[in-house]
């Protein structure tokens, strides 16, 4: 078994991300929809987890993308990926929503015992990011990894279901694991 790196699709994805960032900053038509398709699930899931309320999560998702579009001229493609910038706006919005909720709660003593809103968001962020990166793996790896880790199926069962040799399933899992480690490492989203 060689040490061939899976560079092709990752490099293409980075080029795409860089192009989208420039288009977004320039206000090109369609770029808002493109970044929405990319990270709306991430933003919404993060908000739903942190806020525990899907309607509030919908509002935060809407506010995040509208704010991002209005502030697009302040996005600097040279300083990082657009998706990380958008997620940064979402973190702020979620923290604000939690903050507002805490101020509305009467029992100040009970509230002050809780961790701050930023900490609450960040506790969820890594987990949601990993779920996002898992989907980014693309087929068949996203399916295999979801079956193995989200659904907890055995490798034998997955091989059976996907009509794939067991060795191939195991190899996909190992490569996916490395790819996810790399993505989480370089991800400027979490910083």
């Amino acid at each position, binding site marked *: *078994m060689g*040490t061939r790196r899976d560079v092709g699709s990752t490099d293409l994805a980075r080029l795409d991300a860089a192009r989208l960032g420039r288009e977004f900053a320039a206000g090109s038509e369609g770029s*808002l*929809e493109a970044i*929405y398709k990319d990270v*709306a*699930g*991430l*933003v*919404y*899931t993060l908000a*739903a*987890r942190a806020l525990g309320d899907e309607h509030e*999560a*919908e509002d935060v*998702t*809407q506010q995040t*993308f*509208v704010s991002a*579009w*209005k502030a697009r001229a302040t996005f600097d493609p040279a300083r990082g990926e657009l998706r990380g910038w958008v997620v940064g706006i979402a973190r702020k919005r979620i923290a604000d929503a939690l903050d507002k909720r805490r101020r509305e709660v009467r029992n100040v003593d009970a509230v002050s015992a809780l961790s701050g809103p930023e900490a609450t968001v960040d506790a969820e962020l*890594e*987990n*949601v990011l*990993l*779920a*996002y990166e*898992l*989907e980014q793996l693309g087929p068949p790896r996203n399916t295999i*990894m*979801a079956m*193995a*880790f*989200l*659904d*907890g199926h055995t490798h034998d069962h997955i091989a059976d279901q996907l009509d794939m040799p067991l060795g191939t399933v*195991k*190899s996909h*899992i*190992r*490569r996916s*694991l*490395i790819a*996810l*480690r790399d993505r*989480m*490492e370089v991800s400027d989203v979490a910083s």
Partner: protein
Amino acid sequence: MSHLDDDVLAMLALGDPVASHEREHAATCDECARQVAEISRTRAGLESLAQTGGLLAPPPAVWEAISSQVRRGDGADELAARRERTRRSTSPWMVGVAAAAGLVIGGVGVATLVNGAEAAREQVAVAPLTNLETEQDAGVARVELRADGSQVLVLETEYEPIDGAALEVWLIDENVEGMISLGFLTSGSETFVIPAGFDVTAYPIVDVSVEPFDGDPTHSGQSVTRGVLDA
């Protein structure tokens, strides 16, 4: 010997069997041990997804709300920003000239305010209006063609008098570069004559702004109601 390759590192992190010399290397090499620890951390993260679940998708209504809000409200900030730029870059002399020009335009707007009861009209374009603060429906603006060939803008919208300021009605182009004042709103239902030869399609944004009585004839940047004419 050289370090372990990614595949073996992943096998170690997954607890899969590896050759004994590979296991020994991982136990004695700091670099490889660090990598195994990192990959194990990713594995633990993936395992925790079993409890929390994967990504959720927002309902389609969220995107619809974003795209309509962006289409509708995008000019708001741009207008305020433009005002800021103008303020910073305009000399007092220029303000004087603009004031003179603005007074003429304002005068035309007021003078051509016409009575709502008119002869047969044909609707040319319509703009649902939105209160920019509450984002609620705020009535409608219609461009109508009168029997004599002139065009009017009919506003049916919320109206509340403001102390020390007036509500001014504007038609603005899509780039928020050019605009014309049609006059002041003094009731919830008002008709403004559009000057002959003025191409409404080039100025599709209907905007109502709060204009303080400060002698500055340019748009204050404080829009309260807006809509886009859809011919």
